[in-house]
């Protein structure tokens, strides 16, 4: 018995040690979650406009092109659940907050939780670096090392940045992520796939419940809420069926009836062309600058 316990201990200890060292190492690498959280903790009182949403707004709205003190708090795959969490996390610090720009699109209205979509690593970051306590302290979501594939990519990127230089965070000081001018991704394959994905989609009530909470939060604080749907490449947009488009639009229009809320569907009014996108739904940096300017002009119109 003693021999067995001793053998198990000898076997397990190096694994635990390596995991511990690995976890500490991963946490020492700078990342957007920690950066944005630190920035907001420090500057929440100065922010006049806060941008929420997923990669579509993260890559598409540059605060530097907008009037006033704007910060982009959007991050890849961010859901409305996280938008609400982040909006309220710094609530005590807001002194000049006038406007919140929140995204309404098929990704955050029609898709379920991140964990069930295979983006559990994102939940880990919200847990560790932003204090989102949806998962317990003892769950795998509290350990970066529990997703070795993502860790590997993160470390590789860090080393590449160290060797070749560049922006490790992947965002500028105001939280915008410039994607460059190079087109990437196939023409139609992912659009075909997305078509299949959305075909049977329906509104996820859980997502809408967080949207309602965001609306309520803004109304209570007298903050204007601007719901937007970002423009897409025509090819991709045409692959979405009418039902998908309608579901999203209806949500936008429905909540824009509430006082202090407006909805802008950029797919309907945008001047972007196919060459403005790096893939089917994310804007090139130059296009994002133009788009941010366009958005800002619209927001100035009461």
């Amino acid at each position, binding site marked *: *018995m003693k*021999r*067995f316990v001793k*053998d*198990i201990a000898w*076997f397990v200890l*190096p*694994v635990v040690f390596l*995991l511990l060292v690995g976890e500490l190492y991963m946490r020492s690498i700078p990342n957007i979650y920690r950066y944005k959280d630190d920035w907001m903790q420090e500057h929440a009182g100065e922010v006049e406009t806060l941008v929420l949403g997923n990669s579509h707004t993260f890559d598409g709205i540059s605060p530097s092109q907008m009037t006033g003190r704007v910060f982009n708090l959007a991050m890849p795959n961010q859901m409305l659940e996280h938008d609400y969490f982040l909006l309220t996390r710094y609530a005590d610090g807001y002194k000049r907050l006038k406007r919140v720009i929140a995204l309404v699109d098929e990704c955050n209205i029609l898709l379920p939780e991140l*964990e*069930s*979509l*295979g983006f*559990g*690593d994102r*939940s*880990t970051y919200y847990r560790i670096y932003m204090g989102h306590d949806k998962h317990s302290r003892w*769950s*795998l*979501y509290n350990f970066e*090392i*529990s*997703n*070795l*594939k993502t860790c590997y990519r993160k470390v590789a990127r860090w080393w590449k940045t160290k060797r070749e230089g560049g922006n490790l965070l992947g965002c500028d000081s105001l939280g915008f992520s410039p994607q460059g001018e190079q087109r990437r991704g196939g023409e139609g*394959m992912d659009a*075909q*796939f997305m*078509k*299949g*994905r959305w*075909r*049977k989609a329906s509104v996820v009530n859980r997502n809408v419940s967080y949207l309602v909470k965001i609306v309520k939060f803004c109304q209570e604080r007298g903050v204007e809420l601007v719901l937007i749907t970002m423009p897409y490449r025509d090819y991709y947009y045409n692959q979405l069926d009418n039902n998908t488009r309608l579901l999203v639009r209806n949500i936008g229009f429905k909540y824009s009836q509430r006082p202090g809320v407006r909805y802008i569907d950029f797919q309907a009014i945008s001047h972007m062309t196919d060459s403005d996108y790096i893939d089917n739904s994310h804007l090139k940096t130059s296009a994002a600058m133009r788009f941010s300017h366009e958005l800002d002009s619209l927001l100035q119109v009461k």
Partner: protein
Amino acid sequence: MLFLPVVFGLYWYVFKKLRDQNWFLAAASVLFYACWDWRFSLLLVFTTLCSYGTGLALERLVTRRKRMWMSAANIVVNLLILAFFKYYNFFADSFADLLRLMGFLPDFPTLQIVLPVGISFYTFQALSYSIDVYRRKVKATHDLASFMAYVTFFPQLVAGPIERATTLLPQMQKARSFDYENAADGCRQMLWGFVKKIVVADNCAVAVDMIWGNYASMGGVQLLLGAFLFSFQIYADFSAYSDIAQGCARLFGINLKANFAYPYFSRNIGEFWRRWHMSLMRWFRSYVYIPLGGNRDGLNKTLRNIMIVFLLSGLWHGANWTFLVWGAYHGLLMCIALLAGWDRRYNSVVGAGGWLKTSELYGMFLTFILVVFGWIFFRSSSLAEAEGFLSHMISHINITTITVGHRAAMYSFLLVVIDWTCRRREHVLQLNFGGLFQYRWGRWVLYYGLVFLIIYELHQSQQAFIYFQF
């Protein structure tokens, strides 16, 4: 993660007497079950006490008639509980559909019933005891501690193997001593179980979910790959749980029966069912097939009995027409095998003597394809989905690019190769300690490699074991 080491430590170091060990095992198992939902642990205790009480009553009753009534009452109570939690909505909806077809407008309430995890497993295990006592195959036990430990034993509580009282209860009643070799081999078996679950099954699950969720926009070859991947997913998933359960039980000095014996190398459907979910098939053979007459009353009744067993087996898996169709399909295959005289062939390990005969290879391939076809019904959420999947697969069978499932296919292929190499062993890591493995460092390099492979493939959105839902 802490549960097993804590229970293991207390079991061997603190509770040294058999009776104490059994009470402790039972309490730890009920606690383990209560972690899902404490209310259902009461149901577990009730089911256990019901069968225990029935055993004692059967011992006292003398007349055959009274014994029969007592045994039947216990069966009915247990099956009613199972039927309520598992089948109420299915039967209510199906009956309502039937009435609608006949022109009535029924209004049955649909209840929001939460299925207690593993209810089918422990109910069957508890039933096996009372039936065996009725048949006088085992003596009724007066030792509640050992009986509680037998029904609730946590490694196999939620997804089997379904143990018979004749094999597990005596082990609970005998003093157990720690055996280093048995425990170490148990750890190796658990390690291999985790490899199958996390590396193979979970990777397959991601691809399979994507393929089934988008089958209408995918090509036939991709769907075919999806069906193959589901076959490996369910095998890796369920056999992994069985390996973990067996390995874990060995840490406590208990030996559970094997549940899988490399089923995809079966050369006909009869052999497949002797190698797949063996504990369930043993249960149905002993408590349904043989009491119905087995193969003693002529061909027609044998065929009828086979169909009944497989339909019940389908229904056991879940309250859905897809499971019934799956069961009926396998029943039909078994009937055909019986009529052709194939059902009892091939009791030995495949390729035991070296080379495979062409007929064996052909049989293996055909059996696998037939089984894969059946899994399409098993995986689909409705008959309409299964039909849509199949018709889309056939009508779009042109060679298209496979976009989903490369990684899962690679791991599945590796699993097949490893299983084939190790098919004579009870589990893959039952090393013969030859070559490099005669040295501890050689073995540990392998174990560390597997542990890091598990960690590499570990995903926070871990898939639950498929058979938990049954």
